[in-house]
C-alpha cells in the first residue's frame, strides 16, 4: 500500500455483540489494529441508546455488529441506525449467516460482512477501507 488517505486511529468503533467474550476479543483486536475509540454494547437497544445520547456526530464513525442477537437482531439495529445515520459504515459479523438475514442486511445498507471466526487481517482490511471513506468524507 503506497498511500492510505484514511487513518484507522481516526475510527471510533461501536462493537455490538451479545457475547462478552466476542466483545472482549474484538475490542482487543481493534485495539491491536490501532483503533483508539472503542465502544461496546451487548445488544441493539444499548447501541441505539448510546448513539442517541451523544450529540457528537463523529463520536462513532463505524459500527461493528453481530447479526444474531437476542431482542434485536443486527439487521433491526441497522435499520434504526440508517434512519438516523444514513452514511455511517456498518459491518456485520456473523457466525452462520442466515441467508435471509444477510440479504436483508444488504438491502438495508450493510457495508461489509465478516465471518466468524474473524481474523485480525480480515478485520484490519475492512477497517482500513472504512477509515479511508471516513477520512474522505470528513
Amino acid at each position: 500500500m503506497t498511500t492510505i488517505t484514511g487513518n484507522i486511529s481516526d475510527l471510533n468503533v461501536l462493537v455490538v455483540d451479545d457475547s462478552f467474550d466476542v466483545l472482549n476479543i474484538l475490542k482487543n483486536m481493534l485495539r491491536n489494529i490501532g483503533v483508539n475509540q472503542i465502544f461496546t454494547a451487548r445488544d441493539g437497544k444499548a447501541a441505539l441508546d448510546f448513539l442517541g445520547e451523544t450529540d457528537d456526530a463523529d463520536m462513532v464513525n463505524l459500527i461493528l455488529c453481530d447479526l444474531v442477537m437476542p431482542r434485536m437482531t443486527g439487521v433491526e439495529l441497522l435499520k434504526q441506525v440508517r434512519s438516523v445515520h444514513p452514511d455511517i459504515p456498518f459491518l456485520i459479523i456473523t457466525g452462520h449467516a442466515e441467508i435471509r438475514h444477510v440479504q436483508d442486511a444488504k438491502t438495508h445498507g450493510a457495508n461489509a460482512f465478516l465471518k466468524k471466526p474473524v481474523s485480525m487481517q480480515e478485520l484490519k482490511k475492512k477497517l482500513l477501507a472504512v477509515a479511508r471513506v471516513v477520512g474522505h468524507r470528513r
Partner: protein
Amino acid sequence: MHARTRATVNFMKYLNSGNVSVLAGEDNFSTRHVLYLAGLTLLGVFVLSIAWEFLYEDLISGNLGGHYHPEETGERWEYVATVMVFTAVALVVPVLVSGKVIRRNVRTEQKIKSLASFPEHSPNPTLRFGSDNVLLYANAASTPFLDAIQCAVGDSVPVAWTRALNDLPTTGNQGRLEYACSGRTFSILLHPMPEAGYVDVYAHDITERIWTEDALHTVNERLEQRVNERTSKLSREIAEREQAQAALRVSEHRYRDIAESSSDWIWEMDEELRFSHYSPRLAEITGVRPEELIGKTRRDLGKGEIEDEKWHRHLMDLDARRPFRDFRYTYKHEDGRTLHFSTSGKPVFDEDGRFKGYRGTGSDITERQQAEAALSNSEQRFRNLVEGSIQGILIHRDRKPLYVNQAWADIHGYTVDEVMAMDSVDGLISEEDRARMAAYRARRMHGEEVPTWYEYQAVQKDGSLIWLENRTSITTWDGEPAIFSCVVDITERKRAEDALQKSEARFRAVLDNSPTKIHIKDEEGRYLLINRQAEILYGITDAEARCRTSYDIFPKEVADSFAGHDQRVIETGHTVEEEEEWHLPDGVRTYLTVKFPILDADGNVTSVGAIGTDITERKKADEERAELGRQLVQSQKMDAIGQLTGGIAHDFNNLLMIIDGYSNQAIQQIKRNGPAKESLAHVVEATDKAAILTQQLLVFSRRQIMEKGVVALDGVLRETLGLLERSVGERHDLKLEMDDGDICAETDSAQLGQAVMNLVINARDAMPRGGSIVVGLRVAEVGDEFTARHRGMTPGRYAEIFVKDQGSGIDPKDLPHIFEPFFTTKAQGKGTGLGLAMVYGFAQQSGMVVDVSSEPGKGSIFRLYLPTVDREPEVALPDVGNLPRGNGEVILLVEDDLSLLKLSSRTLDDLGYTVLTASDGFEALEVDDEIEGPIHLLLSDVVMPNLGGFELADILQKARPDMKIVFISGYPSNDHVPGTGIPKHATFLQKPVKQDVLARTIHAVLERDALCLAG
C-alpha cells in the same frame, strides 16, 4: 129419367121391328096446295118476263134484225130458243103439279068423310093420319099433345113415327109405342084402318105412370140388388162359416194335438170352480191321474208353499170370476221334487152371460223358475259386484248416462243421482283428453279400430283432476247399443309411477354420473344394466349389453375371471372385492370392483351388482404419497440435520472465534518462543480447520450466502474441470460431454462448481483403480414420472448436469443416507462426509434437484437438474479474438451486480488485463489497500450503496492520481449523471455495456494516456 130413356129405347125398338103401324092422315089441302100452285105460276111468269125483257131490248136496239151478223144472229136465236124452253117449262110444270095436288085433295076429302066415327070428345088425345102420313084430324084433347110434338093437322107425321106408320098397312096390326117429348111421355096406340086408308092414333099421357113405373123399377132394382147382396153375403157367410167350421175342425185337431203334445196342460173348471178337465200332460208331469183331481177345487188342492197374499189374491180372482195370469204355485212330487207350476185362466160365460166356469192352461215352470232363480241370483251377484265394485262403471249412450254405479260417482265426487241427471258426462273429462276421446268415438262410429283401453284425466266435482284408466266396450241397454265404460282411479298409481319414473331418472342420473362403473347381472350372468362409465369401459351401450354375458363382450379369460367373481358372490352371498386391470388404448387402468349380492324377499340372491372404481390415480397417488412421505421424511431428516448442523456451526464459530482470539492474544502475550507458543499456534491452526468444516456445514444447512446469477453452465463446467484435472489423477479419465448451444441457469456458479467438484472427487474415490469419469451437460425434458419422485419439482425443461462413474456403486441400503453430513463409506480419514451434504444443501438452496442412479458394481450417476432460463447469461465469455488486448495493466473492477462483475472480470482477464474485483466501494478500498503496485484503471459502477463510484474514485485518486477512470452508468453520459463530484477525465460507458465496447474503451483510455505520456 132412366125410365124415360128406357121407354124411348123400347119405342125405337118397336119402330124398328116393324110391328108398329102408323096412321098417315090427310094434310090441310086447300091452303097449302093453292099457295104452291100460285108460287109455281109466278115463277113461270117471272122467267118468261125476264126472257121477254131480254129479247125485247135486242129487238128494239135492232140487234135482232137490222144489224145482223151471221155469228151474232145464230147466237141470239139460240138464246131465244132457250128462253122459250124455260117459258114452256114454267108454264107446264105448275099445271102438272096442280093436277097432282088436285088428285090428292080429292082423296083427302074422302078421308074426311070417314071421320064420322072419330071420338071427338075423348079425354085422351086422338089423332087420325092419312095413308100419306099426314095428320088428318085431331080431337080437342090433342092440342097439348100436338103442341108437345109440334105438329098440326095437315102436317106430316113426326119422323119417329114414319116407319111405324109405313109398316102398319102391311101388317094390319095395332101398334103401340111410347113417345116422349117436352118432358112428357105418351103411350101411342096406332090403330090402322087399312080399308079406310088412315090410321087412328090414340095417345095417352103416361108420364106419371112412367115415373111411377120408373120409381117402382128403381125400388125393384134396389131391392133386387139388396137381395143379391144379401144373398151374396149369406153365401159368403155360409162359405166362411163352412171354412171356419173346417178351420175350426182343423184347429180343434191342431189344438188337440198341441194340447196333447204340449209341455203345458189344459184345464177347465165348472161353475162350481171344480176342476172338470185336465189334459193328459198334467198326469205326465205330476204322475197324478186327472180323475184324482177332477171335482176338486183349488182350495181342495191346498195352498202349498204359496205366499198367503198371492194365495188369497188368487182365490179372490176366482171368486170374482176374474181372469188371472201366471199364478204360480208349487207341487210336491211324490218323488220328493218340488215342482213349480204356473197357471193362467179366464172365466167362461155362455151366450146369456151365465158363468160356466174357468178354462185355462198350466205349465211346469220348474226349470224356468230354477233358471230364473239362477239368473236372479246371477243378476244379484253381478249387481252386487257392480254396485260393490271399486271400479267405476258407467253405461252411456252418446255420453248420456244410462247407468252409473256408486264407485263411478264417488270417483268423480258426485252422487249417483247427480250423474244420472247429467245430459252428458263429457264435462267430467279434462279438456286435454276430451278431443282425443271424441276422436275415438268418431272413429269407432266409422268402424275403425280404436283403443278400448286408455288413460285419461277426469275432472272431479271440485275441479281437481284425477287420472283414470278406462276400458270401453259396446253393450246393449234396453235393446239399444250403448257404451260400457269401466274406470279405475289410477291417480295414486300415476303419482307413484311418476315418482318411480323420477326416482328411476334420478337413479339413472346418479348411475350415469357416477365416476364409477356400475353394472347388475342376473344369476345367469346376463347384464341387466350398465351405467355410462361401464358403457365407455366395456365399449358397449346399455341396450346392447342387456341379456348379454361377459363372454359376449370380453375375451374368454377376462370373462372367466368376472364370472368367477360373480359366482363367488352368488354362492357365498357376501360382497367380494377385486382389483381389475383394464388394458385400454391409453394405458392400463386399475379398477377396484366391489361385487355384492342383490337379494329377493326370501333372501335369495337374484342378481349381482358391481361397482368398480378407477383407482389408477389413487394407486398412483398412494405410491406417490408414499414416495413423497419417504421424501418428506428424508427431507425433514435432512432439514433437521441442517438445522442441527447450522446451529452447531453458529455456536461453533463463536467458540472458534473465542478460541482463536484468545489463542492469538496468548501468542502475542508470550514473548518467547517455546512449546506453549507452538501449542497455541496448533490451536490456532486447528481453529482454522474447524472453521472450514463449519463453513461446509453451513453450506449443507443452506445457510451459505448465495450469489445467484444467470450463468452459462458449460463455462462453469469447463472451469471446474480445468481445476480438477490435476486433482483427479492420471488413472482417471475425466471427460466432458455437452450438447451444443448455450444452456443457461440461474445459480451461484461458484457453489455449482464446488458441487460438481465434490461429485467428481467422489467418483474418483469410487474408482480407486481408476476409470472413466464423465461429466455431462444436456437439456432434459422432465416428465411426471420423474417429478413424482422429487418433491417440489415440476415437469418441464431442465439443464441436466451429470457425473457418471464406473465405480463400485452405492449399496442400496446406503442410498437414503448418502446426503447426510458426515455419512461416508470412505476409509477413516479419507473423507469428511460433507461432500454430498454440501451438494445436497446447495441443490436445495438453489432450487436444484439431485438424482442418483446407482447399481452396485456398475457405477453411479449423479444428476443435477437446474431450471433453464431463456435470458442471456450474465456471465458469458465473449469472443475476444479480434478485440484490442491489454498488456497486463491492472484494472480495479467494481460492480455490485455479481454476475456482471464476473462477466466483465473474465472478459478483461481474457483480454490480457490483470483484474482486481470488488463488489462495492468498501471492498474496492480493501483491494486497493492490498495492492502494492499500481492500479492503472478503475472500472466502476456509478451507483452503489453507501459508497458510490464517484466517491470511490475520488478516494482512490487521492492515493493514485494517475489511475484512469471509466464509469459504467445507467445514464447516457456524465452530463446526465445526477449528483456532484464527478471526477475529471472520467470516461462513461452506458449500460448495458457490450464486452467488445468495454474492451475497446478500456484499451483506448489506457492507450490515450500512453500516447499523452509519450507525447
